[in-house]
């Protein structure tokens, strides 16, 4: 993690899905854990998410989706990050993501995928353990 500043996280809701109970809970939990969290709100396109991640200079990008459109949307976000040279960003995903979809999503660089019932403490430790120091 970057020296001298708090961990910055972007929580994004890609696609048309309106379920953001989980996303909002995680936003609060991460803030309570001392992180700076920006929540995009609903209906973000991959382009909007990549732009927000760049603009907000975040260390972690989290995406929550429960509508089943993840296989369409996540690869586009990852592609956009690569084009901007932001491959180092720690990207996590959560929501309803079937078991068999997980390996291909990990292959495109999504480090952690968290399903229903995950505790916020587990996500916080995952971020702490997986965040690599960045050059400032």
């Amino acid at each position: 993690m970057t020296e001298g500043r708090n961990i910055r996280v972007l929580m994004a809701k890609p696609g048309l899905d309106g379920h953001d109970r989980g996303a909002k809970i995680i936003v609060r939990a991460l803030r309570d854990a001392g992180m700076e969290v920006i929540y995009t709100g609903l209906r973000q396109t991959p382009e909007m998410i990549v732009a927000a991640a760049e603009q907000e200079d975040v260390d972690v990008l989290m995406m929550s989706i429960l509508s089943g459109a993840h296989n369409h949307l996540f690869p586009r976000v990852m592609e956009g990050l690569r084009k901007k040279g932001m491959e180092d960003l720690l990207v996590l995903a959560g929501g309803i993501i079937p078991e068999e979809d997980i390996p291909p999503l990990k292959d495109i660089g999504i480090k952690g995928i968290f399903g229903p019932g995950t505790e916020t403490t587990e996500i916080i430790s995952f971020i702490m353990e997986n965040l690599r120091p960045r050059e400032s």
Partner: protein
Amino acid sequence: MSGKEPLEKLASDTARWEEKTREQLAKIPEARTGFETMSGLPVKGLYTPLDTADQDYRESLGFPGSYPFTRGIQNTMYRGRFWTMRQYAGFGSARDTNRRFRYLLEQGQTGLSLAFDLPTQIGYDSDHPLAMGEVGRVGVAIDSIRDLAVLFEEIPLKEVSTSMTINSPAAILTAMYLALGEKGGTPADQLRGTVQNDVLKEYIARGTYIFPVKQALRLTADIIGYCARVMPQWNSISISGYHMREAGCTAVQEVAFTLANGITYVETSLKAGLKIDDIGPRLSFFFSAHQDFFEEVAKFRAARRIWARLMKERFGAENPRSLMLRYHVQTAGCSLMAQQPMLNILRTGYEALSAVLGGCQSLHTNSYDEALALPSERSAQIALRTQQIIAHEIGVTETADPLAGSYYLESLTDRIEAEAREYLRKIDEMGGVITSISTGYLQEEIAESAYRYQKAVEERRRIVVGVNKFKVKEEPLTGLHKADPAVGEEQAARLRKLKRERSARAVSSALAEVSRIAETEENLLPSILQAVKAEATVGEICGALREVFGEYTQAGYY
């Protein structure tokens, strides 16, 4: 009250009993401290007639079928007929959903409930760039009246009642259903069912808004007004607490926020020139049945009583049907767990029982696999059977409101009413629901409750069996519903075909008329009806309205 014993004597006996209990507790304390309902209302170890001493039977409870309807809206309740068993279903194409509907009807379901995919709910056709990956996922894709016709193939509209979970484009789907009925020989006045048409909770919790609040409410009032004239058996709105509860609010907040939205719809309709007793009988509601059994039964009873009083005292309604809170219930989706998913059958069963003991008019029971996927045929069948067991096997339907008179339940009913009224007062003071949405008050209250609940789970103050206690290693559930990835392309092809075959001129002139009326204060329904008959698509009609109304944007970053 028994009537034989004076309350003073009972009070002193109760005090003695409490004293004795305290002595016992000094030796063997209770398992934990701070007993409370799931929503945080305190629960005592004992309830007696002292707790309901203020209740006057006639004023607080009354008879089933009579004001204030605490004990239910019909005299005979389920002795007359059971609630409508209405399973929410929809996925893939219209053909896929038609097959599931017919399966559910064959299995003894008594009403239909239609789930639309997100592009339909947000007014985009299946070939819109923002629809990519979402077509047919969380519900069925409906682009035009042709799709709706396929959806209802071999299902006579005369014989079923259909509920449609559609909000921002509610006018379009209502018009499509009406046109489909007309075409198949069922006139509008014989169509039975419900259109959700509750946009306020979309801004608060559910998220499928399109238009700015003011314009969205105009559409709502247009639908209510049109249906009051043309579709007398159609519930033109289903004012929904369910989604706010799913987003994390408490039982008290669910009642309060739903009825606050109800008040707003009534006020909007009155402002549009409608009469309270014309619209009152067509308003319907939708609540969750969550896990705290007694709290839920009390919630339903309290909600009925508050609404009856509001309609009578605040709006001067006189028609008894205007005073009745009629509602659908769905068991709590958020109580379904991905871990040990078969346990969800039990959770759903208890929740459904609370809905029935609370006096619901229709019920959806969730399927055990819904934390993982849309229901499979097998899980949907078990869910329906759960209701059938409650109706036919366990004897809870033999008499109206069988839990009435329980000291605990009645005291909880009073408490929920009092706390919900306090919220209603606060919302009024803030200037009403629309202001409370724009300041983010309602959204914030819900998020706060959701976070408080999550903390209780993580700190093990609340046990979730199989998740934070009694965990096992398990194999992933098999037989899950799989989304068909080809649906998007199939729908796009259907749209291309539609656009080749229909009269482009008829469509463009119908859309121009929708735009023209949107600029005026006239009711939009007749022009929308013409447009759907000309086979204009949901996306095209919403597009025309978007141009006039603009779009809602969520307020900034959170």
